């Protein structure tokens, strides 16, 4: 008994030391190295000059303004769409909600450059929809979708994943008896939604809104692909400045964004604490789906729901469909006239097209597993013991969220391009390991964010009960806590795996000749004139989406039904 307890303590301290070392070595050192390299580029601090240059740049000012108003507009539209989804899935009785749920879950696996390209494929100048529109109304320009409208459109429908995940769970926690009470007092459906339901889900809605805000402020792919010449946002400017070899200006702009984002994270933690309190009511009557009485309204809600599903599914469906099309028909035909499995055979056949797929699968799963291990070890400690040390740890984990990944990549390169005593004087640059390490760092913020909520949501009585029955710390963790947070862990693993498969900036900087990853291959395929390459990219994207969606739907099945506390936010 005491021997095992002693061993557990040893393990605990060993784990703490390993994490402290990892945070120092792979987070703090690289980030400060990057900032140092950026800000002291000529041996002296020339911030004043850089700031002056930034302020005087017309395009930087435009990017600031664009980011500000696009963020505000997106928040409004995303909230409307997200709330509508939640209402359709969890509040009203709508036919085919299983199908709708799958449709609305696509943003979880369809994001970033892939999704932006998919939207361009669907609505852009060369798309079937544009062709049909211009045939009907010749006055419509072919690039009607390109510009702020396309960006806002893409944002609106691609950024609802947090609503899908968390607002739905919050809706399930609404005590149905309060709704019935309101109805008995003669309240209309609208009044009930506004006065009874909304206040209950409000803390979650705020937390979700903050997460979404964070995503919009850092949006890159949508304006890059769909913004056209007149609409660009801050993260594009950061990238541009970096490619102009002005890392100092890039870093300053990134720091400005970072401060805004850090503020948002802290705010969301504040709301999280409040939300946990609201979610405390235990003896609630489970919410029952409401039939919409008014037939006109009912038809309208159904029509809107299915229109929304179509908006979500069409870009995905086109990508999947063209992944089965002969390479020659991509970009030429509006819909493939024949289908083939050749593209799949080329990817899965084990040839050169298979290598990047394999590399990314391997590095992606390794990074996700390591990231989860770190998160599962560190987060319970951070949640239980609140002091300056754990607070610092928690902020460190969020750093990669506010530092643009390019800066992080540069930091990793600068920190490990020479023998580094922190890693036993090894030179990590050029080795196989630097990219997977980068992936782990990149994965941590979202994992920590989600798992924090999951751990906070656990009723402490479970652990107490287990402790009273003699379960040791690790045993309690394994048998009681882990199963409770498992759905969240699987979910976040699936989401993160999916992003890693398409993560570009880190990959581009850190890969070496032996681990050329999928994103590099996909981008090469996208810019390559070789139609075979484009076809193979579509296969990659389809396979990744299918895989991630399966993982996420499994997690969803495990989580929402039985243990609402794990989808707490």
């Amino acid at each position, binding site marked *: 008994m005491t021997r095992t307890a002693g061993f557990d303590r040893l393990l605990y301290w060993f784990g703490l030391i390993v994490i402290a070392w990892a945070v120092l070595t792979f987070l703090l050192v690289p980030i400060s190295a990057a900032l140092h390299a950026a800000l002291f580029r000529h041996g002296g601090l020339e911030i004043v000059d850089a700031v002056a240059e930034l302020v005087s740049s017309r395009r930087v000012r435009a990017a600031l303004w664009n980011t500000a108003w696009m963020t505000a507009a997106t928040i409004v539209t995303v909230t409307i769409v997200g709330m509508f989804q939640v209402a359709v899935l969890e509040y009203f009785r709508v036919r085919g909600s299983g199908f709708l749920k799958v449709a609305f879950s696509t943003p979880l696996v369809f994001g970033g450059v892939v999704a932006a390209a998919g939207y361009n494929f669907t609505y852009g100048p060369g798309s079937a929809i544009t062709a049909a529109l211009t045939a009907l109304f010749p006055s419509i320009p072919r690039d009607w979708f390109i510009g702020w409208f396309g960006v806002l459109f893409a944002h609106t429908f691609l950024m609802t994943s947090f609503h899908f995940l968390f607002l739905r769970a919050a809706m399930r926690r609404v005590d149905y008896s309060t709704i019935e009470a309101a109805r008995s007092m003669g309240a209309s459906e609208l009044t009930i939604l506004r006065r009874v339901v909304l206040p209950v889900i409000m803390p979650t809605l705020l937390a979700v809104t903050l997460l979404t805000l964070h995503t919009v402020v850092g949006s890159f792919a949508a304006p890059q692909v769909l913004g056209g*010449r007149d609409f660009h946002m801050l993260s594009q400017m950061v990238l541009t400045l970096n490619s102009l070899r002005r890392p100092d200006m890039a870093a300053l702009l990134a720091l400005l964004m970072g401060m805004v984002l850090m503020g948002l994270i802290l705010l969301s933690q504040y709301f999280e604490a409040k939300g946990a309190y609201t979610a405390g009511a235990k003896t609630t009557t489970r919410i029952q789906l409401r039939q919409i009485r008014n037939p006109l309204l009912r038809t309208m809600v159904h029509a809107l729901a299915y229109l929304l599903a179509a908006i979500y599914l069409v870009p995905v469906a086109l990508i999947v469909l063209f992944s089965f099309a002969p390479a020659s028909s991509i970009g030429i035909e509006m819909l493939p006239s024949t289908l083939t499995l050749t593209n799949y055979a080329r990817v899965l056949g084990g040839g050169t097209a298979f290598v990047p797929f394999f590399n990314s699968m391997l590095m992606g799963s390794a990074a996700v597993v390591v990231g989860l291990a770190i998160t599962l070890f560190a987060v319970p400690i951070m949640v239980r013991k609140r002091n300056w040390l754990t607070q610092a740890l928690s902020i460190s984990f969020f750093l990669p969220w506010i530092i643009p990944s390019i800066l992080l990549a540069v930091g990793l390169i600068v920190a490990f*391009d020479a023998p580094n005593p922190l890693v036993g004087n090894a030179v990590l640059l050029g080795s196989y390991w630097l990219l*997977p390490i980068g992936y782990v760092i990149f994965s941590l913020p979202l994992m920590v964010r989600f798992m924090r909520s999951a751990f906070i949501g656990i009723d402490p009585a479970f652990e107490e009960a287990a402790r009273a029955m003699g379960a040791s710390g690790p045993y309690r963790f394994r048998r009681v806590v882990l199963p409770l947070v498992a759905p969240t862990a699987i979910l976040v693993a699936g989401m993160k795996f999916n992003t890693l498969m398409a993560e570009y900036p880190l990959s*581009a*900087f850190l890969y070496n000749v032996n681990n050329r990853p999928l994103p590099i291959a996909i981008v090469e395929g996208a810019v390559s004139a070789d139609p075979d390459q484009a076809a193979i990219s579509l296969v990659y994207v389809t396979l990744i989406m299918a895989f991630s969606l399966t993982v996420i739907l499994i997690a969803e099945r495990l989580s929402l039904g039985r243990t609402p506390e794990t989808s707490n936010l």
Partner: protein
Amino acid sequence: MKLSLALASAAIALASAFPAFAGALTIYSPQGGERAVWIAEQAKAAGHDIKLLNAGGGELFDRLLAEKNNPQADVVLGMVDTSMALLKKEGLFQPYSPSWATDLPARYKDAEGMVHKFWQTPIVLAYYPDRLPDAEAPKSWLDLTKDEYQGKYVLGATAWQTPRMYLAGILVRFLDANGEVSDEGWEFLSKLYAHAIIANDADSYTEAFKSGRASLDLNWLGGSFKLAKDLGAKVKVIDTEGGTPILSEGVAIMAATDQLDEAKAFVNWWGSADVMAAYAAKFGQVPVLPEALAKSPPAVQENARLVKAQPIDWDAIAPKLDGWLQKIELEIR
């Protein structure tokens, strides 16, 4: 269980990866896709054990600078004049005179004997005769800002190699006595951007032509031909007044290589007349080695005479280019 499995497989992958890494000659090159495949195949057939790392020119440049303290590459192949000049300035290369350098015209060699150029790539101004009658085609790059060409040409992203080069080619015409671009030059460039269709990615570049809006192509020679072929249209290259910027791609051996002999052998093989001619036959790239050009297909030889070169001192321009691009990105476009 899952963890140990993943770790085990990672370990296996690593174990199998390292020996290969130690043996092969690592070459950084912007030549990707089928070109990379061809290079790898031919090199292997000639007995060279190489590993190619492909990326965009800008990315490779950044990577080489970032890896300065611990270079991973043994040979840099196919980057353009300005990039090679800057990398040389950073002290990344070592001198070596390849076996084919003796016959190479002087302007394709540098004073330090580190960088040797093997191809030339004109950055051309071309037009589509079925959209723009011959008589109305521009005569010079400086004609582009005329009102009749508004909305008829596409400017690509400054992150791309080609736009960087023609923008530089335009700006050098406006250098004042101090070697700075005059206000007149910047006004010209502002107008050039104001009148242009802007493309941030390859798709929208192609799309501008597909939709019929664009009739003038500012492109590297091979790219221009390729685009015309994809569009199924005829394109004509203009031999502009004031000349056409011509780039040349070079090869150099990294100072830090630990496989100097293999690197030398590879460079000797790569620049040789036969390999260059074979590459020209396959991809239409114009070699600068006279013997290689002579062995190339007639179409390639014809391309070599298509335009007259604009006199540009790339080594002098290279350090200024970033500042110019910054001004374009932050204020003009």
